[in-house]
């Protein structure tokens, strides 16, 4: 049984089909790559899954539960997390506070207990701070923990975005172009980190243009073009697929 089942997903914006007749399964503990030219519908796909807008048609099942069209905060309760292409952070907070904010859904003690200064609740919050620090160490940002998020260089901001997503303790992590704007060294580092995240039991859907990252990380690759799935398979198969090559070479950029 798949962790995530997408059935006949369609998303239209007016007359424009951003996603058309998409069927996809994502299984536990795998890293699925989602690639395709710009505008192929990859970010729309993420947005539909995470409830930014509902699909026009089709269904999304997560762990056998129908999450189609649910609001974003409800879907977060199902432990699906994502990062964003433009670094979406709490700019005025410190790096550490950013990650701590991510723990919101993970507290076991009731909220009013926190207000009443009940020790067990406040203890949980201190533990959350420690866990946040662990995540920062895991991702290599610990030395910057008190720095204002707005002051971080771009690459670090993207990693911070991933840290915040990790703080929610997700089962499924949607990574939206995490390697954009990174030099080869940073990309290698990112690849290692993503592998580690998967090794910690988190299933990942990775949207990326950087082929080094995609080839290194993904168990399977799904290719979208103009909102449709045009290929799905092992990395080696995909690089040889004629339709895929044409989709990319038909555009200005040369990714291979």
């Amino acid at each position, binding site marked *: 049984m798949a962790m995530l089942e997408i059935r006949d997903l369609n998303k239209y914006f007016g007359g424009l089909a951003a996603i058309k007749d998409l069927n996809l399964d994502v299984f536990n503990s795998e890293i699925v790559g989602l690639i395709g030219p710009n505008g192929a519908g990859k970010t729309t796909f993420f947005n539909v899954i995470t409830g930014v807008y509902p699909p026009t048609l089709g269904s999304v099942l997560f762990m056998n539960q129908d999450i189609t069209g649910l609001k974003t905060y409800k879907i977060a309760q199902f432990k699906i997390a994502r990062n*964003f292409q433009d670094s979406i952070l709490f700019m005025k*907070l410190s790096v550490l506070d950013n990650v701590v*904010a991510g723990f919101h859904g993970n507290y076991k003690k009731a909220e009013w207990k926190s*207000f009443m200064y009940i020790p067990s*609740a406040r203890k949980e919050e201190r533990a959350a701070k420690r866990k946040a620090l662990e995540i920062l160490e895991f991702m290599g940002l610990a030395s910057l923990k008190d720095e204002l998020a707005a002051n971080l260089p771009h690459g670090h901001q993207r990693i911070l975005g991933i840290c915040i997503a990790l703080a929610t303790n997700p089962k499924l992590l949607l990574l939206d172009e995490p390697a954009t704007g990174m030099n080869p060294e940073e990309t290698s580092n990112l690849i290692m980190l993503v592998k580690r995240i998967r090794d910690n039991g988190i299933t990942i859907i990775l949207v990326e243009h950087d082929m080094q990252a995609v080839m290194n990380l993904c168990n399977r690759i799904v290719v979208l073009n103009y909102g449709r799935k045009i290929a799905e398979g092992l990395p080696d198969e995909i690089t040889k697929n004629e339709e895929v090559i044409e989709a990319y070479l038909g555009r200005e950029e040369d990714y291979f």
Partner: protein
Amino acid sequence: MLLKYKINSPLKRLIGLLSLGVILISLPFLIRSPYYLHLVIMACINIVLAMTFSLMFSAGLITLGAAAFWAIGAYASTVLVMNLGISFWLALPFAGMIAGIFAFAFGLIIVRTPGFIFVMETFVINMMVVHAFGHITQLGGWGGICGIPRPGAITIPFIYQITFATKIPYYYLILLILLMTVIVFYALHSSRIGTAWRSIKLNPGLAQTLGINLFRYRVMVFTIASAFAGLTGSFYAHYYETIEPETFIIFKSLYIQIYGILGGLNFYILGPTIGASIMTFAPEFLRITQEYEPIYTGSMLILLAIILPGGILSIPERISALSRQNKVKKVKQ
């Protein structure tokens, strides 16, 4: 930011608090004039109202309707005591709750559209409430209600009976209410609820992906803030012994916002305290007559916007930023 200027040594903190406590407790006996004591009492009321504004602001909501819930509390308490014969001491919390319930009901409708629309909707609520009280003759209409009874005497067994014959017991009562508000609001701001509010304020989209239910937290902050405004309304009604719709017009809500801006919107407790105090006392000490008071306030607001948008409490930070700039210039030379 709650108490950004933290005094780290616990001993210093204790001494500071104790000194402050001594001053506050002995204040009525240091200020001989009932008129100035009246100003202090009004300042306390304004501080609480300003804090309710800051509470909502910490969640990203700007309200121009604080005076409306102040009004609802005042009128509710008056009706409870004068028409239903309930003791003031029961009417006080009830008035707060009634104001909170109204805010809850309004909130369910207007909180879905945060931002500018929300501000306008609170503006409209304020106008509606004032006009409602003005047109309902049973509530005194535009002339208002006078002769509102004072709080009943408190009897401390075997020791003393506190009657509200002078301003002094009123002062201690509002001081108590102010203290309680500070404690409750500080607890809220420093708890997970406060963190959720600030997340919503900084980045609602991101907050949602972290599981924060924007609607719920926004309704919550609106309800709590308005309930405390209503509580102060009850005090005000039985202190002033008169209430009229004119007191609660939109200008008051605007002033409440200015109390917050003047002090510093990033400081949720100290900011309102400083801003409300200054604006309550300054017109007196500057000998500004009531007609010209809006000119003073307006000019001050414009100056603030140009020179000091962060309010008074942002001055230390601006100074240190300037000195850092100067150091850089010196190094360059």
